[in-house]
């Protein structure tokens, strides 16, 4: 079989961040090729490079065996590529046919030939089994139909190789099944489909071949029939799981956090957390494992008051905080190390001292009355920088001048010094070097020994195995099961993370 697309050694950097690190990809003509990986693995970047939306810093692109330079999307379209983006780009006030032909209107003598456009849209719709009414106004249609229109747009431009970026993210299960049928139809007509996803069941359901990306690199490309979901999980999160567990005393404290049947929606309004219940006791580290994007971040946001719960409750020391503000939750004794430190965890433009001040700007001795005592802030910040090993010129250094690891230590210094009973720790060592990871892990265990209740959310299994007393596995917004930290097996974790339930503690699926 010939190669529809071949990428050789694609490198794409954003500043110092390497989004694609020498990625090779071969897509055979007439196959459905799934690209999987966690959020931030570089899937979308790679496809944007292929489609000419981004220019690679290195590497080659071959279409149908011929090397080409994809300078812009127009060049990509000319080469027979088409891309359906995650976020649709339709004009709601125009009709289906007008949207399909937007920018390449069929016309005569400067006038748009609506009849021809409608007829051609109907033909495409019939040939490819994408049912639409060409005369309907797009603004009135559902998301699933909007996606069909996006696909029709691509087909109308003569695409033979179709790229879909997380096409099912916005679809209902029925719509997803219909989409898969359509994709099958495409390859039956000799076309090639590349689709990005992080849902493994979709990979298994529809793809012929699967490529796994991890941290900007290709892990492997395999025929889908030869891999299991569990294999894919291992590839996505990394195989080298170490089982170096930290020594600990058993925990004996009372319940600090109690979550009951908690639900919430994500930014698109779709259910992200779907009825989770668990407790965290004092002096205990409860880990939450899962492939990124299965509701962990949203759960953390609800527990810190940054996202409203749609159902259920959570209590800290028995106090119901489900609808409380971030301020009140903090005052009750919650510290939060957020998953995305650059967005939420720090203000990069401010000094270390100003970052450490956040959350205590009204509290003595940091402030006297309504005046901030900057001398105290600096002094305390210096002490914390020493204790948490933040390497910088001093408390007045701007946070944006720090490395990722030192930035994270500033966040930990601030949050762990709040004397909170409950620590919500989300991805504490993401993007942090090994030395800093070690000291961050030590600090978490010290907090545990001091009797804090700790919820540790991480996509790194070795981190959870090293630190957690119990591990809850989240999949698709549900807790699939609980594993004891001291006798967890990689297989059991992997199966639960892939959404396969085992054993007697099988939770009810909504």
């Amino acid at each position, binding site marked *: 079989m010939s190669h529809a697309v071949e990428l050789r050694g694609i490198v794409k950097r954003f500043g110092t961040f390497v989004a694609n690190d020498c990625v090779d990809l071969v897509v055979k003509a007439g196959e459905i090729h799934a690209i999987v990986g966690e959020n931030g693995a570089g899937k979308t970047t790679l496809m944007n490079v292929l489609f000419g939306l981004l220019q690679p810093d290195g590497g080659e692109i071959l279409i149908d065996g011929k090397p080409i330079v994809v300078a812009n999307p127009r060049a990509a379209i000319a080469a027979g590529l088409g891309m359906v983006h995650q976020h649709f780009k339709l004009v709601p006030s125009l009709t289906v046919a007008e949207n399909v032909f937007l920018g390449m209107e069929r016309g005569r003598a400067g006038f748009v030939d609506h009849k021809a456009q409608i007829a051609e849209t109907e033909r495409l719709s019939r040939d490819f089994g994408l049912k639409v009414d060409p005369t309907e106004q797009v603004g009135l249609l559902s998301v699933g139909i909007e996606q069909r229109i996006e696909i029709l747009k691509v087909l109308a431009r003569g695409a033979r190789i179709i790229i879909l970026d997380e096409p099912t993210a916005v679809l209902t299960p029925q719509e997803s099944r219909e989409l898969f049928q359509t994709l099958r139809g495409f390859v039956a007509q000799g076309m090639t489909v590349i689709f990005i996803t992080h849902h493994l069941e979709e990979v298994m359901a529809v793809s012929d071949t699967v490529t796994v990306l991890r941290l900007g690199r290709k892990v492997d490309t395999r025929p889908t029939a030869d891999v299991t979901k569990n294999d894919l999980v291992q590839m996505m999160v990394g195989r080298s799981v170490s089982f170096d567990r930290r020594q600990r005393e058993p925990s004996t404290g009372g319940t600090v956090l109690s979550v009951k049947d908690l639900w919430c929606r994500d930014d698109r309004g779709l259910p992200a957390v779907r009825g989770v219940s668990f407790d965290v006791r004092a002096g205990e580290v409860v880990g939450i494992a899962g492939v990124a994007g299965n509701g962990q971040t949203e759960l953390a946001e609800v527990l810190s008051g*940054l996202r409203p719960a749609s159902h259920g409750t959570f209590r800290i020391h028995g106090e119901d905080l489900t609808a409380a503000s*971030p301020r009140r939750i903090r005052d009750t004794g919650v510290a939060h190390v957020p998953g995305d430190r650059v967005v939420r965890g720090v203000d990069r433009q401010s000094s270390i001292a100003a970052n450490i001040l956040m959350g205590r700007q009204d509290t003595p001795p940091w402030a006297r009355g309504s005046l*901030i005592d900057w001398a105290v802030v600096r002094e305390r910040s210096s002490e914390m920088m020493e204790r948490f090993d933040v390497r910088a010129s001093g408390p007045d250094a701007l946070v944006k001048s720090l490395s990722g690891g030192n930035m994270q230590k500033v966040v930990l210094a601030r949050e762990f010094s709040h004397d909170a009973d409950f620590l919500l720790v989300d991805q504490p060592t993401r993007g942090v070097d090994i030395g800093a990871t070690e000291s961050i892990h030590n600090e978490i265990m010290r907090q545990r020994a001091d009797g804090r209740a700790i919820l540790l959310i991480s996509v790194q299994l070795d981190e959870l195995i090293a630190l957690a007393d119990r591990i809850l596995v989240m999949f698709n917004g549900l807790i699939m099961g609980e594993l004891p930290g001291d006798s967890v097996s990689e297989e059991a974790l992997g199966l639960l993370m892939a959404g396969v339930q085992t054993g007697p503690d099988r939770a009810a699926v909504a």
Partner: protein
Amino acid sequence: MSETLRPVIGQAIAIFIALALGTVVIMVVGESPILVFATLLEGAFGSTERIAGTLLQTTPILVCGIAACISFRGGLFNIGVEGQLFMGGFAAVIVGIYLPLPAGLHMLVGILVAMLAGMAWIAIPAFFRARYNANEVVSTILSNYVAVLLTSYFTIFLFKRPGGWSETAPILPSAYLPELFSFSRLNWGLIIGLALAVAVQLYFRHTSRGYSVSIMGQNLKFAEYGGVDIKRHIFLVLLASGAVGGLAGGIEALGVHHRFMEGFAPGFGFDGVIAALLANGNPIGTIGAALFFGALRSGSLLLEVDTNASREIITVIQALIILSVSAQILMRRRGDSTAAERRWKF
């Protein structure tokens, strides 16, 4: 390059480019750029009286600039300072005419009412911004037109002084903001403006709330996460900004015109917003920027007398400055990866 110096140098380059382009425009209309700039300088700083005249023009621009600075610091964009100035000025005049009080107290009440009027005028945009995230740029711009036309209507149809001009009766002398010198209308407004600039700067640096607002302006999500009540602070910041806009109107009314009329304070609000932009939201820097715009305005008066160049040349130069400053700010934003997190919209 030091972090504090970089924006200053950027701004200086922006002004330089604008003046260079202005030179081209002046040559195109057939004037000598050297003569025009020399006349501008002469008109702005040529004598004690002219310096006082420049400071008189600087005062409202400065106070309006501080109003804009306050909103910028919170990551908000109050572009309705002009409208708040008109409402404040009008309210102060009404107090000045109809509420006889002892001298001094009368003036203070007038100033206070002017601030309340400015605050009231921004209250609706502020509420919708805080509660429903309605873009304050649009709503405050629109509120400008309403304010200018509404006060004009009141002046002409309800409070017009008998006689030719579209203006109200003069206010009582007890409400006058005292003048600083006998030879100029320059008044205590300048001192108020300077003191306010220092006070606002200190407030943002040294108070808890000032800190919360500054952080909110730089990284909203971080402030929210840290427990700052975002909605409340957005509302309060805009109210404070509106109050200072109203204050600018009160100063103009009680210190300079002693009455309200159509075209009461043309463009001071907008100049103030630009001055604040030029100063990157720093109140102290706004003093310098306001002086620059004040000098352009007062220098342009002599320009019409002594040369064939029209005063509109100054408007052109100002527009060029706005253009190059915005371009410069946008380029700086692009260089900073977290710029997308900031909510300043241009």
